[in-house]
Every structure is written in C-alpha cells, then in structure tokens.
C-alpha cells in the first residue's frame, strides 16, 4: 500500500468514528488515570451500558495532562460537543449514562469543559480554562484525543505524513528543516538537535544507531511516561525521521522498567508499524530500512547520561566515560550513535509534519518551540503541561497551576530534578528558557517542576536531592563518589541540629570541587540543589545551624509536639492512635506526650479533632505543659 492509501483508510476510519450515531465515551487511562481509578470507572460504565441496553463506543485514550482532575471521562454525542467530566467515580459514571446519554441532561455540575466549536450552556470551553489557555500543544498534540493503541488514529491526525514527505526529499533537507526549527535537546542540556544530527551523519562508518532516551530517572518527572503512553507513534515517527537523516539502520528505545504500560503500548505500536510497512525493509517503498528494539532499563539513574546509557545497552555496568569521542562519532559498539530524548523525538515528527518555520514561530530567540513540564508538589492543578518557551514561572504557578494548595505561601519552585535548583519567590517573573534558568543557578532539565510552599524546608530539600545523587553515583570518579557523600554528611548533620559554624562555607567549597571535577553530568550538576538553596535560602541554613530550629517544621530532630493543657479535653483519640504509646492520660485528663518516647510521626496532630486543636508542632521553642496528666480544666482555673 502507498502512504496515500494508508492515510485514506485511516481517515475514513476516523471520520466514521466521528460521525458515529452511537455515543462515544473516552476514558483517560494512562498510568495516572489508572491509579486514580479509571479502570473501575470503565467497568462501571460497561456494566451500566449493558444493563440499560445502550450501544456505545468506549475508547481508552491517553492523558490530556489534567492529572488533578483524574479520572477523566469524555462523552460525545452526535451533533454535540465533547464534554469532559472530571473526578469521575463509578457512581457518577453511572449517573452520567442515565442523565446525559439517555435524558440529555449534560450535568454541568460534573463537567469540567467542552471540546469543539459549539458549547453547552453552563459548561465552559475546556481550552479556555486557565489551566489550558496558555498551553501550546505540539509534542502533546494527540494526547487524550487518540487511542494510543490504534495507529490509524495517529495517521488520521496527520501522523507519518512528515515521514512520507521526508522520504521524497534528501536527508540533508530533513536536517535543514530541523535546523530552521531551532529545536534543542529536550533531555535537559539543550544541545541543538540539527547540529548533533549533522555530526552523526558526517561521521565515518556504516551501521549507525539511533537511541531514544526514555530512561526518565528524575524523581518528580513523568512527561516522557505520559507521552509514550498517550501517543507512542509521535516518538517513533521522530525516530524514523532521525534515522533517515543520519543514515542509521537500527534504533533502540531505552525505557525505564518502571513504566510497564509505556513499554506495552510501544510494543503494540511497533507491531502496527510493521503491518503498515513503516518499519523494516524498504519503508513505504523507499530505499530506507530501519528497525527499532525496546530495551528495558534496570534501575540506575546515571543511565540517563548518554555514555552510561550506551554502556548499559552493551550489557555492562552503566558507568559514564569521558567525552570526546562523543557518541555521534563513536557510540554504541563504537559506531556513530545519535541519542535524543522522548520529547525531542515527538517534536521532530511535529516539525516535519508542518515545517521548521512554523515551530520556530513559538518560543524565544534562543529557545524555540515549547517545553513539557510535570507540574507537581504543593500546587492545585498538578499535571503534565506544555508551554511555549518564554512563559514566566508566575504564569505557570498561578495561571496554569491555579496557585498553591490550601492557600499557603509560595516558597519556591524546583526545576531540573537532582541536577537543577530551587528558585525563590523573586524568580517568579523569570522566563522559562535555557539561558534564564541557567543564569538563575538552575537548569531547564528534562521538565520536572516541583512547587514548594512554606511547609517545605529548603535544607531538607538539599539533603533529599543529595541523598538521591549520592546513592545513584556510579562510583567511578572521586569528586562525585566522595564529594556527594561528604556534602550529604554535612547536610544530614545540619538537619539533625548538629550543624557547626563553617558548615555553609565547607559545603560551598565542596560544591565547587564536585562541579569542576566530576566526570559526567550527574556529578557536575549534583551541587546545584545545594548551591541554589544556600544562595536563596541562606537564612534557613543559619536557623538550623545557630538556633537549632527548622522554620518550616520539617526536620524531625528539630521539632517537638506538645498537647496544650488549656485546650485538651481528654478525649483519648491521640492516646489511642499514638503508634509508640508515648502519650499518657485518661478520660477527662489532659494528655501529655513523653518527649523521650515520641518519634515525631505527627499522628497526634492529625487525629486531634479540629474543634479542640490541642496539639501543636514547634521548633526552637519550649512550651510549658504539665509533667503528668492533670484533670481537664485545672490549668484554665489556675490562670484565672
């Protein structure tokens, strides 16, 4: 079949679906949707449809990115816009079938928004909501709209047309188009993609390789998982284009084993590509052969570094080596190898489907296009977002993110995972692009964006990231192996209230050594969380060191819990729930916490009924409480 025939077939399948008389129900069922309960919602829908004898089309789609509103169910009826319902439970799903599908009541109370030209009274347009309005969807163009397990859906929405076009042009033309787009590597470092491809194309030798880096190891990042689960073909088409441009014959996807659904959907996608003549020998009848294999990672963060990833693919310990030679010259099995990140590949297919100029129309002068972020932490609208480069952090946090959870105070945002930094309130108006973030001491990174509020301790954050990098250090070079360990030891001491004067200076010195001396990116960037927290939150370090106080009340050795005798009514709930039996008291007796036994788990604070609010958590202050339980009301009378 020619590509035109393939496309016509796909389009007619898609149009038939769109014009279907039957109601369509789309369920967001990427891992995030599933863990929020999408599959039990699906079961409830199926049972209810059967019970009522309704014939409907159920499609599992990927993630539209509104994770805070999961599970999401969209319903389309012929001639009506698609309605997106949020936080659907099996119960509300059953109601929707009765109310909307049968009785045509769109239930605006349960709806999040409508998709399509026409609206429905009482329901806003989905893409006019603040959470979506400033987003631009390029790499996520199909996520939530297509069935990721049906290649025809992808093709009907323009998929593989970029490949078909490129195969009629020269590889140099493809590289030129990527060059015009200004696309830079989305894995974090931001190296211009076209230049990387040029190096690899120009490298001597046959049997070149393409690798898709899907070893998304940054804790707090899930952009690539979501993309692979929701639209695997956009990544695979990108890889085909890269292979054609470079002259590679074999490709690998190195994917974390922690992403079983992504791997399953990739496998289905590869099978469908073969069936459609899009993989293997003479792709689409052209003089271009290429094959892709999936390799599962085995759990090592450092394998996200390209030379370590190559070692791992070769079946060795994933330890980085020094560059040059760069993988573009000598990579996998010593052959020229091009490695790009999942998001980069999805952008490549979008660029070739449209054009380089079109892509370059988004973003800033030096950072073109869009960037995906996984927005998480203490923010209202957690989820996966795609924003044009140049947007401010304020717009992301307060516009898209809807502000801080529980109306707390914004303290900072962490970008770039363990390699990035924590940016303070003053950075809210910083624009998101490679240069600005680097100037502020952080990095763009792969796209983790964790929002922190007043209850987050920045010293603890630095300790957390260091504990991660220290554990993940491969141990090959001394600055990283020993340096991260030393930094972690100091940070742990500070968090335990055993910090000394001079610790901050010592940390800064160590940061400098590790940054300059480590062999690979993991080591070089590991001081960033420490450097930025000292730079922007030095007062918190000082409070820990000189006052033995954790202002955010996070560091357990520095906080204490007390039961206020004026407020305690002796109800016995905390006494019953304390896991270590550190609370003494009795009926109508003021309870007392034995500070020596207390493990500071916080259970008493959680369970104390709000009408009493008798438990307090403090750091650096002493609260006077009785030594032993006393009858309720005694302390009040004493006061009078």
């Amino acid at each position, binding site marked *: 079949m020619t590509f035109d025939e393939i496309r016509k077939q796909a389009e007619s399948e898609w149009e038939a679906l769109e014009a279907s008389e039957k109601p369509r129900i789309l369920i967001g069922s990427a891992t995030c949707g599933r863990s929020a309960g999408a599959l039990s919602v699906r079961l409830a829908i199926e049972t209810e449809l059967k019970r009522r004898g309704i014939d409907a089309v159920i499609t599992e789609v990927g993630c539209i990115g509104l994770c805070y509103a999961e599970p999401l169910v969209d319903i389309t009826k012929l001639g009506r816009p698609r309605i997106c319902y949020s936080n659907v439970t099996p119960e509300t799903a059953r109601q929707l079938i009765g109310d909307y599908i049968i009785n045509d009541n769109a239930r605006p109370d349960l709806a999040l928004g409508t998709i399509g030209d026409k609206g429905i009274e009482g329901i806003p347009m989905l893409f006019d909501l603040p959470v979506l309005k400033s987003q631009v969807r390029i790499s996520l163009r199909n996520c939530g709209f297509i069935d990721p397990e049906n290649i025809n859906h992808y093709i009907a929405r323009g998929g593989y047309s970029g490949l078909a076009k490129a195969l009629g042009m020269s590889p140099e033309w493809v590289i030129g188009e990527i060059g015009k787009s200004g696309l830079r590597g989305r894995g974090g470092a931001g190296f211009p993609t076209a230049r990387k491809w040029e190096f690899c194309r120009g490298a001597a030798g046959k049997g070149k390789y393409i690798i898709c880096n899907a070893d998304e190891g940054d804790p707090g990042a*899930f952009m690539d998982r979501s993309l692979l689960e929701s639209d695997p073909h956009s990544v695979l088409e990108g890889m085909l284009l890269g292979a054609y441009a470079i002259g590679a014959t074999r490709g690998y996807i190195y994917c974390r084993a922690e992403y079983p659904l992504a791997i399953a959907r990739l496998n289905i996608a590869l099978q469908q590509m073969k069936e459609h003549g899009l993989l293997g020998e003479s792709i689409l009848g052209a003089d271009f052969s290429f094959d892709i294999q999936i390799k599962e990672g085995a759990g090592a963060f450092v394998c996200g570094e390209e030379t370590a990833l190559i070692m791992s693919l070769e079946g060795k310990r994933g330890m980085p080596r020094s560059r040059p030679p760069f993988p573009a010259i000598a990579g996998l099995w010593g052959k020229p190898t091009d490695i790009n990140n999942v998001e980069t590949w999805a952008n490549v297919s979008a660029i070739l489907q449209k054009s380089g100029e079109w892509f370059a129309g988004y973003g800033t002068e030096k950072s073109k296009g869009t960037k995906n972020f996984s927005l998480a932490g203490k923010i209202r609208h957690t989820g996966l977002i795609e924003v044009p480069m140049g947007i401010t952090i304020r717009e992301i946090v307060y516009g898209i993110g809807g502000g801080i959870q529980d109306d707390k105070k914004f303290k900072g945002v962490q970008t770039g995972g363990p390699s990035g930094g924590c940016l303070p309130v003053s950075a809210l108006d910083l624009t998101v692009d490679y240069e600005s973030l680097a100037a502020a001491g952080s990095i763009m990174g792969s796209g983790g964006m964790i929002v922190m509020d007043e209850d*987050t301790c920045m010293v603890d954050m630095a300790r957390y990231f260091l504990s991660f990098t220290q554990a993940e250090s491969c141990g090959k070079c001394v600055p990283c192996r020993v340096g991260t360990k030393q930094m972690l030891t100091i940070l742990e001491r500070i968090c335990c209230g055993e910090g000394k004067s001079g610790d901050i200076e010592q940390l800064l010195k160590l940061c400098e050594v590790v940054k300059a001396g480590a062999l690979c990116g993991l080591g070089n960037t590991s001081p960033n969380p420490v450097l930025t927290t000292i730079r922007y939150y030095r007062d918190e370090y000082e409070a820990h060191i000189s006052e033995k106080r954790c202002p955010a009340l996070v560091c357990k050795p520095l906080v204490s819990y007390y039961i206020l005798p004026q407020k305690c009514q002796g109800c016995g709930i905390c006494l019953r729930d304390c896991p270590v039996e550190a609370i003494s008291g009795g009926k109508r007796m003021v309870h007392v916490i034995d500070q020596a036994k207390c493990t500071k788990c916080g259970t008493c604070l959680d369970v104390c009924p709000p009408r009493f609010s008798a438990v307090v958590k403090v750091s650096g202050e002493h609260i006077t409480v009785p030594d032993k339980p006393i009858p309720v009301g005694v302390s009040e009378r004493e006061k009078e």
Partner: protein
Amino acid sequence: MLECVFRFSARGEVNFLEKMPKRLEKIFNAYHGEKGTLVPILQEIQGEFGYLPEELFSEVARFLGISQNEIYGVATFYTQFRFTPPAEHTVKVCLGTACHVRGGADILDAVERELCTQQGGITSDRKFGLERVACFGCCALAPVMVVDDNVYAKMTVTKAKQILMEYGWEDKKA
C-alpha cells in the same frame, strides 16, 4: 550444558533446582548470537524465578562467555536485581521529589513501623517485602504507594494501613 545446576542449594530445595535448567534454556534460546544481552537475560531470569538464584550464574557465564565476576558486577550495579526470593507481596513506597514534598517519608515510616521491617526487608512470615523507590512517575497523585502492580494515590498513614489490610496484613494493635 547446564548439568552443574543439579546440586543442593543452601536450603536443600532439590526439586526447585531440577526445574531450573529447562527454564533457563528457554531464556537462553531467545538470545543466541546477539550482543549486549546480559541485562535482558538477567531480567528474564528474575522474571521467571522472582530473583537471581546464585546457582545460575555459572550457566549464564558459560552461555555468554564472560566471568561470573562480571555478571555479579552488573547485577549488583542495577537496583532492579535482587538475590533473595521476594515476599508474597511487595510494597513500594515512592520517595520521588513530589512524594517527598507531600510527605512520602511519613508513609514509609508508618509502613516500616506497621510491618516491623525496614526498607529493603521482608516480614518474618515472608508475606510482605518493603522497598522504597525513587519515582513512579505518578507525581501528580503524590504521595504514592504501590503494592505488587497496583498503584495507590494520595496516600495517608491511615490509608496505607487499610491497604495493607486488604493484602492480608493484621493490625496486631487492634
């Protein structure tokens, strides 16, 4: 080939070992003549047996023509591989950044306390194994706990206890 695995393991599970060669051979068959297959072979062995039985290292070494040392070096480098049989249920508490910020450590503390085992450990009845993981990629639903393959979102200490009970854990205090 494969004859040497017919020996008693430390626990004397001779029947268990007798079944090994066939299962191992099946795994090897898929990898004849390929390069860089040590990691996937180890992954398949773990998938088949639940862990990497030490008794099989010599066979893997022979098949790939490398030393047992090298296999051990690779197997210990990656956190995925384990050298002891897993418990009936594996509880994984996520301590990714989002989970950390939203109190993942408290969940881990609570589960450690309730199961009376540390992370990386197994309960004495071999019913539960406890692990901490760096990130599941479900950050928007933090904090997250995973039991076997089931992801549980927005955890609290109380919810964690209830979930453990669903898998047969008994609250001795209650």
